[in-house]
């Protein structure tokens, strides 16, 4: 029960008992809004009783349509009807790869992709905001007044750019964002509170386009995410596609027109859904290229989608490994997302964990319900049990260091909020500025990670290389959003940036990056060693050249020639891939300059002493 709040004298009472708080599941295919009413989380349906809002936005002559109305026109008006906009959030044009997959007119420009519609150029943030606005209006009609705050869910694997874009979209839709919440975590809240369970849970979230797995521990009212992983290029759509290809093969048809393809894809999806609860599903359709008449059985479906099912298990293993657990340590497996209705997914999960998965909540609604419960609590409407949520960041955050390597500052699966600092130094004598490049990902080379932001720390007083102490602090808040600041310790020169990247990773890239980071751990170690050897080579070349420019008169011709030869040798090997030869050349240069260094030190000492005498006289 909601308690009536009694206001202090002099304070105005709240306009109604409890604040209006909502949870929003902003999905790739469908979106939902839920709230807590009389202590119970409920999804808010439209006037016709439909709980889902298809995540489709259409720009019409006179305005904007969202949901079923827009979906109905998708094939007729593809250029102005945006589907699956979630895939474009926080993405640049370069990230999309083959943009011919999309029927839109993309506009060149800085940062995030933009789409030219009949209503003008729109960003994914603006398009998502239309969906969120429709959900807000639905909630306001149902709750009888303005919404005070919302929790919006994001895939656990969303990076900083995608999270920031989602938060921006919510603000644009006139929502006060109480928190961005990871989708599997939201589902765990709905389940955990519903079943009053304790123990370790796995949340298996297979959506339309993404797959997330989170491992959580529930103890005495604390939800602690231990690890999260996923494959953001794997979802229910891929299963539809396999059925589509199979049907095409059965009918022995040539490649289809766009309209035929859309029709057959819809039939393929229907057949897939029919198999949940039936022994066979027929695909019987007349296309312009010919007729398709095929009967899909569970056995055939199982065979053609076996590799997809297998692909969900690798991230599950990885998450368990990161959590230092084995499958038998898991007390329950929660299924989330419409695609987990498929029997062979349920069988594979049951087999892997040695227990049947939990399916007593609607897998399509559970994320929105969990978000509503969290929103209700964050808004201050405390009801019933008290509990706390401790979540993690999905991908490591780091800085580019010399040699194009990523120095990880905050490792993946760190509990948020988290702040961590690391000191860096200057590379050259008299260096007065340092540029910082913030990256996200697991690979060692910066080129293989996602670039989040670049910024510069200026005004460092000139010092010898290595003398400046630049402390860089990374801070990730409870929404999983990063802020970076840098400060030169001896002088206090500071620069800071809220990381507002212009675009982020493609889903496929995140998955690929993570998969490759495991597959290429050995390559990375070698690449790191080579890059480090190059950095060392550059350092010694620069130091030697500077010393020669200043004090060459200390050397006799033979010694000078020996140093020149060794220097040329290092330069010649600098860009080859032979690390051994480079290291040997650097070593030779070190030896060749040893006597020279000693003579320079003597001269420096003499200069310093004479300087002091001058001071004393003055």
């Amino acid at each position, binding site marked *: 029960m909601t308690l009536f709040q009694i206001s202090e004298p002099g304070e105005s009472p709240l306009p109604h008992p409890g604040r209006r708080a909502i949870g929003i599941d902003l999905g790739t295919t469908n979106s939902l809004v839920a709230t807590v009413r009389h202590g119970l989380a409920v999804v808010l349906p439209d006037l016709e009783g439909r709980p889902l809002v298809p995540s489709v936005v259409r720009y019409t002559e006179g305005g904007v349509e969202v949901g079923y109305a827009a979906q109905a026109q998708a094939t007729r008006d593809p250029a102005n009807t945006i589907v699956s906009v979630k895939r474009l959030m926080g993405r640049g044009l370069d990230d999309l790869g083959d943009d011919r997959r999309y029927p839109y007119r993309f506009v060149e420009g800085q940062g995030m992709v933009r789409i030219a519609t009949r209503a003008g150029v729109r960003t994914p943030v603006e398009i998502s905001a239309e969906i969120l606005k429709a959900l807000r209006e639905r909630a306001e009609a149902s709750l009888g007044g303005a919404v005070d705050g919302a929790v919006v869910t994001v895939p656990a694997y969303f990076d900083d750019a995608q999270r920031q874009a989602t938060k921006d979209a919510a603000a644009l839709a006139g929502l006060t964002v*109480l*928190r961005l919440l990871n989708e599997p975590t939201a589902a765990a809240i709905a389940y955990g509170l519903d079943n009053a369970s304790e123990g370790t849970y796995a949340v298996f979230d297979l959506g339309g386009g993404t797959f997330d797995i989170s491992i959580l521990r529930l*103890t*005495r009212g*604390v939800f602690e995410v231990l690890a999260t992983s996923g494959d953001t290029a794997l979802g229910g759509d891929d299963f539809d596609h396999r059925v589509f290809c199979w049907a095409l093969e059965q009918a022995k048809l040539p490649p289809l027109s766009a309209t035929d393809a859309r029709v057959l894809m819809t039939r393929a999806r229907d057949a897939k859904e029919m198999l949940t609860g039936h022994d066979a599903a027929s695909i019987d359709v007349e296309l312009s290229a010919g007729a398709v008449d095929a009967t899909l059985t569970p056995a055939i479906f199982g065979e053609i989608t076996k590799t997809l099912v297998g692909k969900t298990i*690798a991230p599950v*293993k*990885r998450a368990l*490994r990161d959590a230092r657990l084995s499958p038998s340590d898991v007390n329950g497996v929660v299924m989330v997302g419409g695609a987990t209705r498929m029997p062979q997914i349920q069988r594979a999960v049951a087999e892997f964990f040695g227990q049947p998965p939990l399916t007593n909540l609607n897998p399509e609604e559970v994320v929105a319900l969990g978000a509503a419960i*969290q929103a209700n*609590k*964050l*808004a*201050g409407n405390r009801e019933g049990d*008290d509990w*706390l*949520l*401790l979540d993690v960041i999905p991908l490591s955050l780091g800085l580019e260091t010399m040699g194009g390597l990523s120095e990880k500052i905050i490792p993946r699966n*760190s*509990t*948020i*909020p*988290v*702040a*961590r600092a690391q000191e860096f130094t200057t590379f050259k004598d008299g260096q007065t500025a340092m540029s910082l490049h913030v990256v996200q990902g697991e690979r060692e080379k910066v080129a293989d990670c996602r670039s989040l932001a670049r910024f510069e720390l200026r005004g460092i007083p000139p010092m010898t290389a290595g003398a400046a102490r630049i402390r860089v602090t990374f*801070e990730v*808040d*409870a929404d999983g959003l990063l802020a970076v600041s840098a400060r030169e310790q001896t002088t206090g020169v500071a620069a800071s940036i809220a990381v507002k990247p212009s675009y982020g990773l493609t889903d496929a890239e995140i998955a690929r990056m993570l998969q490759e980071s*495991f*597959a290429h*751990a050995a390559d990375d170690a070698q690449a790191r060693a080579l890059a480090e050897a190059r950095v060392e080579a550059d350092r010694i070349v620069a130091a030697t050249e500077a010393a020669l420019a200043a004090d060459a008169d200390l050397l006799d011709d033979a010694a000078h020639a020996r140093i020149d030869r060794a220097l040329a040798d290092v330069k010649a090997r600098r860009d080859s891939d032979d690390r051994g030869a480079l290291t040997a050349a650097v070593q030779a240069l070190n030896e060749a300059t040893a006597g020279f260094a000693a003579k320079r030190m003597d001269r420096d000492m003499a200069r310093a002493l004479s300087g002091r005498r001058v001071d004393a006289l003055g």
Partner: protein
Amino acid sequence: MRGVRPAFPLSPMIDFSRNHFDLLGLPARFRIDAQALERAYRALQTDVHPDRHAAGSDAEKRLALQASARVNEAYRALQDPVARAEYLLHLRGVDVRTETDNALPVAFLTEQLERREDAEEAADAQDERRLAALVDAVRADAARLQTEVEVALDAGDLDRGRRRVRELRFLTKIVEDLDEMRAAVLDR
């Protein structure tokens, strides 16, 4: 926002000047009560976590973020044996990360290098059992070393402690690498 102060005095939530052990109410020694650590961590987060202050002023939210991050940092450092030992040494004036005398005993290094070579061979041969046996062996060594670290540090033998910690950190890294190799074989 920098330089803007809250209009009213705000309690700092936690004492940021305390060390990790004091913050979590535990005695500053290597051997810790894991359950007490867990309880203290949860109790602190229950007070300071940003979710507890989501309806507060901007200043309160900012403070909750900092306090919660600080508690997470302390918990992380005390939960992990190597990090805990290094932190304890740091509190006692020994900074293991910057020490120059950081060589490992030759016999120790030789043994670990041989193990790594064994593991690489086993991985090439897709021999998961042999890899698992190697992981178990390194784990057993790490457990033994951890006991030695505990004995040395809690008896105040910092020099012995810091040398054992160095070995323990090395073994922990090997366990991680071997685990990764084993997982790669299993996933194939």
